[in-house]
């Protein structure tokens, strides 16, 4: 009985004003709904339909994508690259994030600020930064010339792309991990230590499980960003066989709208599926954009 009474009380607190205000609330949503419907849902539906159209008797765009080793290879390569970048970013950003969240030392805030700035750098700029690091006139080229007598140039390959994607993933991981660390219950660690667990045991048994939701959701976003990142690949060279570049080439060079649409839809669906999967894995924690 007492539970129903309590429940009634709780309901009373939020109760009717909310219901009474609902029509107003719905009106407030109207502009956003209109914009999204007109410029996002409608075009998306169009894109999906377009991808299914036949052209030159070659089958629908989806069939062309799914039956072509070239496109499938590009998709696979993109996925693998995004996955590797995600893992690397989680490792690097995780170590740094935990360190920055847990330790207090002189210059810490500056370090955090510096590390999180590049979060908003656009892909093109990141691409250029990679060129400065590992391009023909880059830092590594100079270093290589001095040390080994040959220029170390890897900006224009998948390695360069990896570096670029890592560059814009790390700040995001650091931010998320720091936030997650702050909400972690420290007494759990102390309890584990008191039970005789060594440092690595605590890391494996307490810290990593505690950070797991943040790691998963942040990893999913890194993956999604890496899947769709076009700017970096574009700057580093259009001969890289990653899907965004492939879409761009199909669209501009061959004007093949059907395949471009189909590829976009497949890429979008893959990305979205990964995000959804991650959401399932961490039901309660909301993704941080």
């Amino acid at each position, binding site marked *: 009985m007492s539970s129903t009474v309590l429940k009634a009380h709780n309901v009373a607190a939020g109760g009717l*004003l909310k219901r009474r205000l609902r029509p107003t609330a719905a009106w407030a949503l109207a502009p956003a709904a209109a914009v999204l419907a007109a410029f996002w849902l409608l075009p998306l539906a169009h894109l999906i339909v377009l991808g299914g159209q036949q052209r030159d008797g070659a089958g629908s765009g989806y069939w062309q994508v799914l039956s072509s080793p070239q496109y499938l290879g590009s998709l696979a390569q993109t996925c693998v690259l995004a996955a590797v970048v995600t893992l690397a970013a989680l490792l690097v950003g995780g170590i740094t994030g935990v360190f920055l969240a847990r330790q207090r030392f002189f210059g810490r805030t500056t370090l955090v600020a510096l590390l999180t700035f590049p979060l908003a750098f656009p892909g093109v700029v990141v691409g250029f930064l990679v060129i400065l690091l590992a391009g023909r006139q880059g830092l590594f080229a100079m270093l290589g010339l001095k040390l080994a007598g040959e220029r170390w140039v890897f900006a224009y390959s998948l390695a360069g792309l990896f570096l670029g994607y890592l560059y814009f993933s790390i700040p995001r991981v650091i931010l998320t991990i720091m936030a997650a660390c702050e909400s972690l219950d420290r007494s759990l660690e102390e309890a584990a230590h008191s039970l005789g667990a060594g440092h690595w045991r605590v890391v494996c048994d307490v810290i990593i499980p505690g950070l797991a939701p943040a790691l998963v959701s942040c990893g999913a976003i890194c993956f999604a960003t890496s899947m769709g990142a076009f700017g970096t690949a574009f700057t580093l060279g259009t001969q890289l066989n990653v899907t965004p570049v492939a879409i761009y080439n199909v669209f501009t060079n061959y004007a093949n709208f059907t395949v471009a649409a189909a590829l976009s839809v497949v890429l979008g669906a893959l990305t979205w599926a990964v995000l959804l999967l991650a959401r399932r894995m961490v039901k309660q924690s909301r993704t941080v954009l």
Partner: protein
Amino acid sequence: MTGTTLRLIGCRKAFSDGTVAVHDLNLTIEAGETLAILGPSGCGKTTTLRMIAGLERPDVGQVLFGDHDVTRLPIERRDVGMVFQNYALFPNLTVEGNIAYGLKVRGMSVAERNKRCAELLELVGLQEHAKRGIHELSGGQRQRVALARALAPRPKVLLLDEPLAALDAQLRERLRSELDQLLRSLGITSVFVTHDQGEAMALGDRILVMQQGRIAQLGTPREIYQQPANPFVAGFVGNLNAFSVAGRTVNGLKVSGGELPWAEASEPSTVYCRPEHLRVVTREGHLHGRLLGQFFQGAQSRLLIEVGAAQPLLVDSADSVIHAPGDLIALAIEPQALFALHP
């Protein structure tokens, strides 16, 4: 400020999950009266207040302000002043801005607004704090701002939701008497909700005790305390000793520990008395028992006395005699202090 009579006719409120918060409530609050709605959490007191305010609309029934049916009016058109539990002061406005908000909404001119604002600041004694932000105020000051804000537009009815609950004990005592004086001097019809019986006794002209969405008793504080309608009310307002009656004697009732004076013809199965009505006596008393403990409470001390019943007796004694645990204590009681209840 003149008061408005306030009536609830057959008001009923159920929530979407089917639980009924308030059952067919009929209630008249006289003009200028202060009514305290008292009850444990979940008894429907807040819902009742919110129905009067217009924050909840009753499923069935009517709410009348004077002769005016306001059941379908939203809160902003009812002309009520409300003090919220955590005051809900606007953090983006100063003290003055908060008080003037309702006046601004009503389109009052700046000059008039400032005048009214100054009046209210004086009323609650916050003249020096007019330009302060809300975060700079203490709990008591916030409570006063909330009160001034609610009173500024001269509402017909003042509603207070646990107005003192967010304050610490000492401050609560002081603000309680301030609030009492203020409400009395203004003569405004006011309704407040509380779970604190002391607050209800001190402030209410009448008290409405609610239990599970229904009226348990409606009456003056004295009536509620001295003639509680049922054991729930009796137990909720103050402490109570219950005696199981084992049988009658010529002019008394046999209970564990002795015999109580009882002049009436009836023979109830249980009789009750308040702890302060039992007196410790040195000569022969009505009841005898052994002291379990004595707790010093300042002006009085509370004694726990074992008489062989299910619960030890509570005795509030004003004298400062110190007894030792295990002492034999004799207790006396006036016959009119005993009462029976119909559950």
